[in-house]
Protein backbone atom coordinates (compact mmCIF):
# COMPACT_ATOMS: atom_id res chain seq x y z
CA UNK A 1 0.00 0.00 0.00
CA UNK A 2 2.39 2.67 -1.18
CA UNK A 3 1.33 6.31 -1.37
CA UNK A 4 -0.78 6.16 1.78
CA UNK A 5 0.77 9.41 2.95
CA UNK A 6 1.43 12.62 1.06
CA UNK A 7 4.28 15.02 1.68
CA UNK A 8 3.53 18.41 3.09
CA UNK A 9 7.18 19.49 2.90
CA UNK A 10 8.50 20.80 -0.37
CA UNK A 11 11.55 19.72 -2.29
CA UNK A 12 11.08 22.73 -4.55
CA UNK A 13 14.38 24.43 -4.07
CA UNK A 14 16.45 21.63 -2.64
CA UNK A 15 17.52 19.53 -5.58
CA UNK A 16 21.30 19.87 -5.50
CA UNK A 17 21.62 19.45 -9.25
CA UNK A 18 19.45 22.51 -9.78
CA UNK A 19 21.24 24.83 -12.16
CA UNK A 20 19.49 28.12 -11.66
CA UNK A 21 19.80 30.46 -8.73
CA UNK A 22 17.59 29.23 -5.96
CA UNK A 23 16.09 31.19 -3.15
CA UNK A 24 18.99 30.52 -0.79
CA UNK A 25 21.54 31.72 -3.25
CA UNK A 26 19.52 34.84 -3.89
CA UNK A 27 19.35 35.47 -0.15
CA UNK A 28 23.10 34.90 0.15
CA UNK A 29 23.76 37.24 -2.74
CA UNK A 30 21.54 39.86 -1.15
CA UNK A 31 23.34 39.47 2.15
CA UNK A 32 26.71 39.74 0.45
CA UNK A 33 25.56 42.82 -1.43
CA UNK A 34 24.48 44.36 1.84
CA UNK A 35 28.03 43.92 3.04
CA UNK A 36 27.20 41.17 5.46
CA UNK A 37 28.93 38.42 3.60
CA UNK A 38 27.37 35.02 3.45
CA UNK A 39 27.64 34.71 7.19
CA UNK A 40 26.51 31.34 8.44
CA UNK A 41 26.07 30.19 4.88
CA UNK A 42 23.12 30.78 2.64
CA UNK A 43 21.02 28.40 4.70
CA UNK A 44 20.39 31.19 7.18
CA UNK A 45 17.46 31.98 4.97
CA UNK A 46 15.67 28.89 6.13
CA UNK A 47 15.86 29.68 9.79
CA UNK A 48 14.70 33.19 9.09
CA UNK A 49 11.56 32.19 7.23
CA UNK A 50 10.84 29.13 9.34
CA UNK A 51 10.14 27.25 6.14
CA UNK A 52 11.10 23.61 6.03
CA UNK A 53 13.06 22.29 3.15
CA UNK A 54 15.47 19.40 2.96
CA UNK A 55 19.03 19.59 4.10
CA UNK A 56 21.74 19.24 1.55
CA UNK A 57 23.23 15.90 0.60
CA UNK A 58 26.52 16.75 2.28
CA UNK A 59 24.84 17.67 5.54
CA UNK A 60 22.77 14.49 5.59
CA UNK A 61 25.72 12.25 4.75
CA UNK A 62 28.56 13.71 6.84
CA UNK A 63 26.86 14.26 10.19
CA UNK A 64 25.70 10.90 11.47
CA UNK A 65 25.30 8.86 14.58
CA UNK A 66 26.22 5.30 13.72
CA UNK A 67 28.24 4.15 16.72
CA UNK A 68 29.29 0.89 15.05
CA UNK A 69 31.71 3.11 13.13
CA UNK A 70 32.73 5.42 15.98
CA UNK A 71 31.06 7.93 18.25
CA UNK A 72 32.22 11.05 16.38
CA UNK A 73 29.73 12.64 14.02
CA UNK A 74 32.11 12.34 11.07
CA UNK A 75 33.29 8.80 11.90
CA UNK A 76 30.48 7.06 9.98
CA UNK A 77 31.17 9.06 6.81
CA UNK A 78 34.84 8.24 7.20
CA UNK A 79 34.69 4.57 8.07
CA UNK A 80 31.35 3.12 6.96
CA UNK A 81 32.74 2.42 3.48
CA UNK A 82 34.15 -0.76 4.96
CA UNK A 83 30.65 -2.23 5.29
CA UNK A 84 29.76 -4.73 2.58
CA UNK A 85 26.16 -4.02 1.62
CA UNK A 86 25.91 -6.25 -1.42
CA UNK A 87 24.92 -9.04 -1.23
CA UNK A 88 22.53 -8.32 1.64
CA UNK A 89 19.70 -10.25 3.10
CA UNK A 90 17.22 -9.75 5.88
CA UNK A 91 16.01 -12.58 8.06
CA UNK A 92 12.34 -12.13 8.78
CA UNK A 93 11.14 -14.51 11.44
CA UNK A 94 8.98 -14.97 14.49
CA UNK A 95 5.23 -14.75 14.25
CA UNK A 96 4.97 -14.57 10.46
CA UNK A 97 3.40 -16.85 7.86
CA UNK A 98 6.40 -16.93 5.55
CA UNK A 99 9.58 -16.66 7.62
CA UNK A 100 12.88 -16.76 5.82
CA UNK A 101 15.95 -15.02 4.59
CA UNK A 102 14.95 -12.43 2.03
CA UNK A 103 17.59 -10.97 -0.23
CA UNK A 104 17.69 -7.23 -0.71
CA UNK A 105 17.02 -7.61 -4.43
CA UNK A 106 14.10 -9.90 -3.76
CA UNK A 107 12.58 -7.38 -1.35
CA UNK A 108 13.13 -4.48 -3.73
CA UNK A 109 11.50 -6.32 -6.60
CA UNK A 110 8.30 -6.58 -4.61
CA UNK A 111 8.20 -3.14 -2.99
CA UNK A 112 7.06 0.17 -4.41
CA UNK A 113 9.46 2.93 -3.42
CA UNK A 114 8.44 6.54 -3.16
CA UNK A 115 9.91 9.76 -1.84
CA UNK A 116 9.13 10.87 1.70
CA UNK A 117 10.43 14.22 2.90
CA UNK A 118 10.49 13.92 6.67
CA UNK A 119 11.67 15.94 9.61
CA UNK A 120 14.39 14.07 11.49
CA UNK A 121 14.84 14.92 15.16
CA UNK A 122 17.80 13.49 17.05
CA UNK A 123 17.50 12.86 20.77
CA UNK A 124 20.61 15.08 21.06
CA UNK A 125 18.40 18.05 20.12
CA UNK A 126 19.51 18.69 16.56
CA UNK A 127 17.33 18.20 13.52
CA UNK A 128 17.34 17.90 9.76
CA UNK A 129 14.83 17.49 6.96
CA UNK A 130 15.62 14.47 4.81
CA UNK A 131 14.17 13.42 1.45
CA UNK A 132 14.11 9.65 1.85
CA UNK A 133 13.28 7.10 -0.78
CA UNK A 134 11.76 3.95 0.53
CA UNK A 135 8.74 1.77 0.98
CA UNK A 136 6.24 1.36 3.77
CA UNK A 137 7.26 -1.16 6.38
CA UNK A 138 3.62 -2.29 6.33
CA UNK A 139 4.11 -3.53 2.76
CA UNK A 140 7.07 -5.65 3.78
CA UNK A 141 5.21 -7.04 6.76
CA UNK A 142 2.21 -7.83 4.56
CA UNK A 143 4.52 -9.63 2.18
CA UNK A 144 5.59 -12.07 4.89
CA UNK A 145 2.18 -12.22 6.56
CA UNK A 146 1.93 -11.15 10.18
CA UNK A 147 0.25 -13.63 12.51
CA UNK A 148 -2.50 -12.26 14.72
CA UNK A 149 -0.56 -13.13 17.87
CA UNK A 150 2.24 -10.68 16.93
CA UNK A 151 2.23 -7.48 18.98
CA UNK A 152 5.67 -6.01 18.40
CA UNK A 153 8.36 -5.85 15.74
CA UNK A 154 12.01 -6.28 16.71
CA UNK A 155 14.86 -5.10 14.49
CA UNK A 156 18.56 -5.86 14.49
CA UNK A 157 21.52 -4.13 12.84
CA UNK A 158 24.37 -6.05 11.24
CA UNK A 159 27.27 -6.79 13.59
CA UNK A 160 30.52 -7.22 11.70
CA UNK A 161 33.60 -6.59 13.83
CA UNK A 162 35.81 -6.86 10.74
CA UNK A 163 33.98 -4.08 8.99
CA UNK A 164 32.78 -1.98 11.92
CA UNK A 165 35.68 -0.45 13.77
CA UNK A 166 33.46 0.97 16.51
CA UNK A 167 32.15 -2.33 17.87
CA UNK A 168 35.48 -3.29 19.42
CA UNK A 169 34.56 -0.95 22.27
CA UNK A 170 31.36 -1.60 24.23
CA UNK A 171 29.74 1.83 23.76
CA UNK A 172 26.51 -0.14 23.50
CA UNK A 173 25.63 -3.80 23.88
CA UNK A 174 26.09 -4.89 20.25
CA UNK A 175 24.34 -5.70 17.99
CA UNK A 176 22.12 -2.63 17.91
CA UNK A 177 18.50 -3.61 18.39
CA UNK A 178 15.29 -1.63 18.17
CA UNK A 179 11.58 -2.25 18.32
CA UNK A 180 8.16 -0.89 17.54
CA UNK A 181 4.67 -1.73 18.60
CA UNK A 182 2.89 -3.45 15.69
CA UNK A 183 0.51 -0.53 15.09
CA UNK A 184 3.48 1.85 14.96
CA UNK A 185 5.22 -0.45 12.51
CA UNK A 186 2.12 -0.69 10.30
CA UNK A 187 1.55 3.07 10.32
CA UNK A 188 1.76 4.65 6.84
CA UNK A 189 4.45 7.10 8.04
CA UNK A 190 6.80 4.25 8.99
CA UNK A 191 9.09 3.40 6.12
CA UNK A 192 12.14 1.37 5.26
CA UNK A 193 14.45 3.79 3.49
CA UNK A 194 16.77 2.64 0.74
CA UNK A 195 17.70 5.99 -0.75
CA UNK A 196 18.18 9.71 -0.18
CA UNK A 197 17.64 12.31 -2.89
CA UNK A 198 16.94 9.49 -5.30
CA UNK A 199 20.39 7.99 -4.83
CA UNK A 200 21.24 4.76 -3.03
CA UNK A 201 21.40 5.38 0.67
CA UNK A 202 25.04 5.81 1.73
CA UNK A 203 26.51 3.35 4.21
CA UNK A 204 26.79 5.98 6.92
CA UNK A 205 23.05 6.56 6.70
CA UNK A 206 22.26 2.88 7.13
CA UNK A 207 22.69 1.13 3.79
CA UNK A 208 21.25 -0.85 2.28
CA UNK A 209 18.02 -0.54 4.19
CA UNK A 210 17.03 1.19 7.40
CA UNK A 211 13.95 2.08 9.35
CA UNK A 212 12.58 5.64 9.42
CA UNK A 213 9.98 6.55 12.03
CA UNK A 214 9.72 10.33 11.72
CA UNK A 215 7.78 11.04 14.90
CA UNK A 216 10.33 9.32 17.11
CA UNK A 217 13.86 10.31 18.06
CA UNK A 218 16.39 9.32 15.43
CA UNK A 219 17.90 6.40 17.32
CA UNK A 220 14.65 4.46 16.89
CA UNK A 221 15.26 4.48 13.14
CA UNK A 222 17.65 1.54 13.16
CA UNK A 223 20.20 1.22 10.37
CA UNK A 224 21.50 -1.59 8.14
CA UNK A 225 18.85 -4.08 9.19
CA UNK A 226 19.65 -7.79 9.05
CA UNK A 227 16.76 -9.17 11.08
CA UNK A 228 13.11 -8.33 11.58
CA UNK A 229 11.23 -10.45 14.09
CA UNK A 230 7.54 -10.36 14.84
CA UNK A 231 7.10 -11.03 18.53
CA UNK A 232 4.49 -11.10 21.24
CA UNK A 233 6.35 -9.20 23.96
CA UNK A 234 7.97 -5.78 23.90
CA UNK A 235 11.49 -6.39 22.59
CA UNK A 236 14.63 -4.96 24.20
CA UNK A 237 16.05 -1.83 22.57
CA UNK A 238 19.70 -0.79 22.66
CA UNK A 239 19.55 2.65 24.22
CA UNK A 240 16.93 1.57 26.68
CA UNK A 241 19.24 -1.24 27.79
CA UNK A 242 22.13 1.23 28.08
CA UNK A 243 20.19 3.74 30.13
CA UNK A 244 16.51 3.10 30.78
CA UNK A 245 16.04 6.35 32.67
CA UNK A 246 17.10 8.39 29.65
CA UNK A 247 15.79 6.38 26.72
CA UNK A 248 12.36 4.80 26.78
CA UNK A 249 10.93 2.18 24.46
CA UNK A 250 8.60 4.67 22.80
CA UNK A 251 10.94 7.67 22.50
CA UNK A 252 8.38 9.78 20.71
CA UNK A 253 9.57 13.31 20.03
CA UNK A 254 8.03 15.27 22.86
CA UNK A 255 9.05 18.83 23.77
CA UNK A 256 7.37 18.47 27.16
CA UNK A 257 9.33 15.46 28.35
CA UNK A 258 12.98 16.36 28.80
CA UNK A 259 15.90 14.04 28.49
CA UNK A 260 17.23 13.89 32.07
CA UNK A 261 20.41 15.64 30.93
CA UNK A 262 19.02 18.21 28.52
CA UNK A 263 15.85 19.94 27.49
CA UNK A 264 13.89 18.62 24.52
CA UNK A 265 11.86 21.83 24.17
CA UNK A 266 14.02 23.20 21.38
CA UNK A 267 16.34 21.94 18.68
CA UNK A 268 19.21 23.18 16.53
CA UNK A 269 18.30 22.80 12.86
CA UNK A 270 21.41 21.60 11.04
CA UNK A 271 22.59 23.85 8.26
CA UNK A 272 21.58 27.20 9.66
CA UNK A 273 25.13 28.30 10.38
CA UNK A 274 26.69 29.56 13.56
CA UNK A 275 24.18 32.32 14.34
CA UNK A 276 20.99 30.48 13.39
CA UNK A 277 19.87 29.62 16.89
CA UNK A 278 17.23 27.13 17.92
CA UNK A 279 13.66 26.48 17.05
CA UNK A 280 10.87 24.96 19.07
CA UNK A 281 10.48 21.23 18.89
CA UNK A 282 7.07 20.05 17.74
CA UNK A 283 5.01 17.40 19.52
CA UNK A 284 5.51 14.07 17.70
CA UNK A 285 7.99 16.03 15.58
CA UNK A 286 5.08 17.70 13.80
CA UNK A 287 3.29 14.44 12.96
CA UNK A 288 0.74 14.64 15.76
CA UNK A 289 -2.25 14.72 13.40
CA UNK A 290 -1.14 11.40 11.99
CA UNK A 291 0.07 9.54 15.06
CA UNK A 292 -1.34 11.05 18.26
CA UNK A 293 -4.23 8.56 18.12
CA UNK A 294 -1.75 5.70 18.58
CA UNK A 295 -1.04 6.91 22.09
CA UNK A 296 -4.48 7.98 23.20
CA UNK A 297 -4.94 7.49 26.90
CA UNK A 298 -1.25 6.79 27.51
CA UNK A 299 0.71 8.83 30.01
CA UNK A 300 3.54 10.05 27.81
CA UNK A 301 5.53 11.10 30.86
CA UNK A 302 5.58 7.49 31.92
CA UNK A 303 5.87 5.92 28.48
CA UNK A 304 8.60 8.23 27.19
Amino acid at each position, binding site marked *: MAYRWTNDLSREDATPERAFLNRRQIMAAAAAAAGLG*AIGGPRGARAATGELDPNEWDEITTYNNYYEFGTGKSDPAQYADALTTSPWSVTIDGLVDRPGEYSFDDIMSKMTTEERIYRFRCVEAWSMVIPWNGFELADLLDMVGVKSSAKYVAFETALRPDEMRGVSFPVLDWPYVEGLRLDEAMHPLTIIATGIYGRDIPNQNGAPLRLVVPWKYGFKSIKSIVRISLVEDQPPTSWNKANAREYGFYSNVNPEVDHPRWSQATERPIGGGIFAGRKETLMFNGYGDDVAALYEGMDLNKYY
Partner: protein
Amino acid sequence: MSLVDSINRTTRRIPPWTLYIVGVIPAAWYFYLGVVGRLGVDPVKELEHSYGELALQLLIAGLCVTPLRRFTGIALIRFRRQIGLLAFFYVFCHLLVWLFLDVQILGQIWADILKRPYITIGMAGFVCLIPLAVTSNNFSVRKLGRRWRTLHKLTYLAVLLGAIHFVLLAKGFQLEPLLYLGAILVLLGLRIRLPRRAQPA
Protein backbone atom coordinates in the same frame (compact mmCIF):
# COMPACT_ATOMS: atom_id res chain seq x y z
CA MET B 1 74.71 19.12 28.37
CA SER B 2 71.70 16.96 29.12
CA LEU B 3 68.43 17.12 27.27
CA VAL B 4 66.66 18.54 30.29
CA ASP B 5 69.22 21.31 30.58
CA SER B 6 68.87 22.26 26.97
CA ILE B 7 65.06 22.25 27.24
CA ASN B 8 65.26 24.48 30.30
CA ARG B 9 67.79 26.72 28.61
CA THR B 10 65.56 27.11 25.56
CA THR B 11 62.33 27.71 27.42
CA ARG B 12 64.05 30.29 29.60
CA ARG B 13 64.50 32.45 26.55
CA ILE B 14 60.76 32.47 25.76
CA PRO B 15 58.98 35.42 27.37
CA PRO B 16 55.89 33.98 29.12
CA TRP B 17 53.54 36.60 27.68
CA THR B 18 54.02 35.11 24.20
CA LEU B 19 51.90 32.19 25.37
CA TYR B 20 48.89 34.49 25.51
CA ILE B 21 49.33 35.36 21.85
CA VAL B 22 49.81 31.76 20.74
CA GLY B 23 47.10 30.51 23.09
CA VAL B 24 44.39 32.82 21.84
CA ILE B 25 44.96 31.99 18.17
CA PRO B 26 42.98 28.69 18.18
CA ALA B 27 39.97 30.42 19.73
CA ALA B 28 39.94 33.07 17.04
CA TRP B 29 40.66 30.54 14.30
CA TYR B 30 37.82 28.20 15.29
CA PHE B 31 35.43 31.11 15.56
CA TYR B 32 36.46 32.30 12.11
CA LEU B 33 35.97 28.80 10.69
CA GLY B 34 32.52 28.72 12.26
CA VAL B 35 31.52 32.07 10.82
CA VAL B 36 32.59 31.17 7.30
CA GLY B 37 30.87 27.79 7.51
CA ARG B 38 33.92 25.56 7.72
CA LEU B 39 33.25 23.91 11.07
CA GLY B 40 31.04 21.19 9.63
CA VAL B 41 27.27 21.18 9.51
CA ASP B 42 26.71 21.74 13.24
CA PRO B 43 29.19 24.56 13.88
CA VAL B 44 27.75 25.63 17.24
CA LYS B 45 28.29 22.19 18.79
CA GLU B 46 31.70 21.94 17.18
CA LEU B 47 32.80 25.31 18.53
CA GLU B 48 31.40 24.55 21.96
CA HIS B 49 33.23 21.21 22.08
CA SER B 50 36.50 22.60 20.71
CA TYR B 51 36.65 25.33 23.34
CA GLY B 52 35.64 22.93 26.10
CA GLU B 53 38.22 20.37 25.11
CA LEU B 54 40.99 22.95 24.81
CA ALA B 55 40.08 24.25 28.25
CA LEU B 56 40.37 20.79 29.71
CA GLN B 57 43.67 20.17 27.94
CA LEU B 58 45.09 23.44 29.26
CA LEU B 59 43.93 22.62 32.78
CA ILE B 60 45.69 19.28 32.46
CA ALA B 61 48.80 21.02 31.13
CA GLY B 62 48.75 23.24 34.21
CA LEU B 63 48.57 20.17 36.43
CA CYS B 64 51.57 18.69 34.62
CA VAL B 65 53.95 21.52 35.51
CA THR B 66 54.83 20.40 39.01
CA PRO B 67 55.13 16.63 38.37
CA LEU B 68 57.20 17.36 35.27
CA ARG B 69 59.72 19.24 37.34
CA ARG B 70 59.66 16.66 40.09
CA PHE B 71 60.19 13.67 37.84
CA THR B 72 62.20 15.07 34.95
CA GLY B 73 63.61 18.37 36.11
CA ILE B 74 61.97 20.27 33.26
CA ALA B 75 61.02 23.64 34.70
CA LEU B 76 57.94 25.25 33.18
CA ILE B 77 56.73 27.02 36.29
CA ARG B 78 57.31 30.40 34.61
CA PHE B 79 54.49 29.60 32.21
CA ARG B 80 51.98 28.24 34.69
CA ARG B 81 50.09 31.49 35.12
CA GLN B 82 49.69 31.84 31.38
CA ILE B 83 48.53 28.25 31.04
CA GLY B 84 46.02 28.74 33.84
CA LEU B 85 44.66 32.01 32.50
CA LEU B 86 44.35 30.56 29.02
CA ALA B 87 42.44 27.62 30.48
CA PHE B 88 40.09 30.08 32.14
CA PHE B 89 39.76 31.97 28.85
CA TYR B 90 38.70 28.79 27.04
CA VAL B 91 36.25 27.78 29.73
CA PHE B 92 34.77 31.27 29.43
CA CYS B 93 34.58 31.02 25.61
CA HIS B 94 32.96 27.59 25.98
CA LEU B 95 30.38 29.11 28.31
CA LEU B 96 29.76 32.08 25.99
CA VAL B 97 29.12 29.80 23.03
CA TRP B 98 26.69 27.78 25.11
CA LEU B 99 24.91 30.92 26.33
CA PHE B 100 24.77 33.01 23.18
CA LEU B 101 25.02 30.62 20.25
CA ASP B 102 23.62 27.37 21.57
CA VAL B 103 20.82 27.70 24.11
CA GLN B 104 20.13 31.44 23.80
CA ILE B 105 16.91 31.26 25.77
CA LEU B 106 17.38 32.74 29.23
CA GLY B 107 14.67 30.65 30.90
CA GLN B 108 16.12 27.47 29.51
CA ILE B 109 19.68 28.45 30.46
CA TRP B 110 18.70 28.94 34.08
CA ALA B 111 16.64 25.76 34.14
CA ASP B 112 19.56 23.84 32.65
CA ILE B 113 22.01 25.13 35.25
CA LEU B 114 19.73 24.10 38.08
CA LYS B 115 18.31 20.88 36.67
CA ARG B 116 21.02 19.21 34.62
CA PRO B 117 23.78 17.76 36.79
CA TYR B 118 26.43 17.95 34.08
CA ILE B 119 25.70 21.64 33.53
CA THR B 120 25.52 22.33 37.26
CA ILE B 121 28.90 20.66 37.67
CA GLY B 122 30.43 22.45 34.70
CA MET B 123 29.13 25.75 35.99
CA ALA B 124 30.54 25.02 39.47
CA GLY B 125 33.92 24.34 37.87
CA PHE B 126 33.78 27.68 36.10
CA VAL B 127 32.85 29.49 39.33
CA CYS B 128 35.84 27.84 41.07
CA LEU B 129 38.12 29.28 38.40
CA ILE B 130 36.91 32.88 38.75
CA PRO B 131 38.81 33.76 41.98
CA LEU B 132 41.88 32.04 40.56
CA ALA B 133 41.81 34.12 37.40
CA VAL B 134 41.21 37.29 39.38
CA THR B 135 44.21 36.61 41.63
CA SER B 136 46.57 35.54 38.84
CA ASN B 137 48.80 38.61 39.13
CA ASN B 138 51.88 39.55 41.12
CA PHE B 139 49.98 42.02 43.26
CA SER B 140 47.61 39.31 44.51
CA VAL B 141 50.45 36.88 45.10
CA ARG B 142 52.21 39.45 47.32
CA LYS B 143 49.02 40.60 49.01
CA LEU B 144 47.68 37.12 49.79
CA GLY B 145 51.01 35.56 50.76
CA ARG B 146 50.56 32.00 51.95
CA ARG B 147 46.82 32.19 51.45
CA TRP B 148 47.40 32.51 47.68
CA ARG B 149 48.77 28.98 47.54
CA THR B 150 45.83 27.67 49.53
CA LEU B 151 43.34 29.51 47.35
CA HIS B 152 44.90 28.17 44.17
CA LYS B 153 44.42 24.60 45.32
CA LEU B 154 40.88 25.23 44.03
CA THR B 155 42.35 24.34 40.63
CA TYR B 156 42.25 20.70 41.67
CA LEU B 157 38.52 20.88 42.32
CA ALA B 158 37.84 22.88 39.15
CA VAL B 159 39.68 20.49 36.88
CA LEU B 160 38.00 17.50 38.48
CA LEU B 161 34.59 19.11 37.97
CA GLY B 162 35.52 19.82 34.36
CA ALA B 163 36.38 16.18 33.74
CA ILE B 164 33.19 14.95 35.42
CA HIS B 165 31.22 17.44 33.32
CA PHE B 166 32.72 15.81 30.22
CA VAL B 167 32.12 12.25 31.41
CA LEU B 168 28.49 13.00 32.31
CA LEU B 169 27.55 14.40 28.95
CA ALA B 170 28.72 11.39 26.95
CA LYS B 171 26.08 9.15 25.44
CA GLY B 172 26.70 5.48 26.03
CA PHE B 173 29.99 4.17 27.36
CA GLN B 174 32.68 6.30 25.73
CA LEU B 175 36.43 6.11 26.14
CA GLU B 176 37.64 9.66 25.54
CA PRO B 177 36.05 11.43 28.53
CA LEU B 178 37.21 8.58 30.76
CA LEU B 179 40.78 9.00 29.54
CA TYR B 180 40.65 12.67 30.50
CA LEU B 181 39.24 11.84 33.90
CA GLY B 182 41.87 9.12 34.35
CA ALA B 183 44.73 11.45 33.45
CA ILE B 184 43.43 14.05 35.88
CA LEU B 185 43.05 11.52 38.68
CA VAL B 186 46.64 10.38 38.15
CA LEU B 187 47.91 13.96 38.16
CA LEU B 188 45.97 14.73 41.31
CA GLY B 189 47.11 11.47 42.87
CA LEU B 190 50.74 12.49 42.39
CA ARG B 191 50.07 15.42 44.69
CA ILE B 192 48.93 13.38 47.63
CA ARG B 193 51.73 13.36 50.16
CA LEU B 194 51.91 10.07 51.92
CA PRO B 195 52.38 10.49 55.66
CA ARG B 196 56.07 10.12 56.44
CA ARG B 197 57.52 8.45 59.44
CA ALA B 198 58.45 10.96 62.11
CA GLN B 199 61.92 12.34 61.54
CA PRO B 200 64.38 11.79 64.34
CA ALA B 201 64.93 15.07 66.10
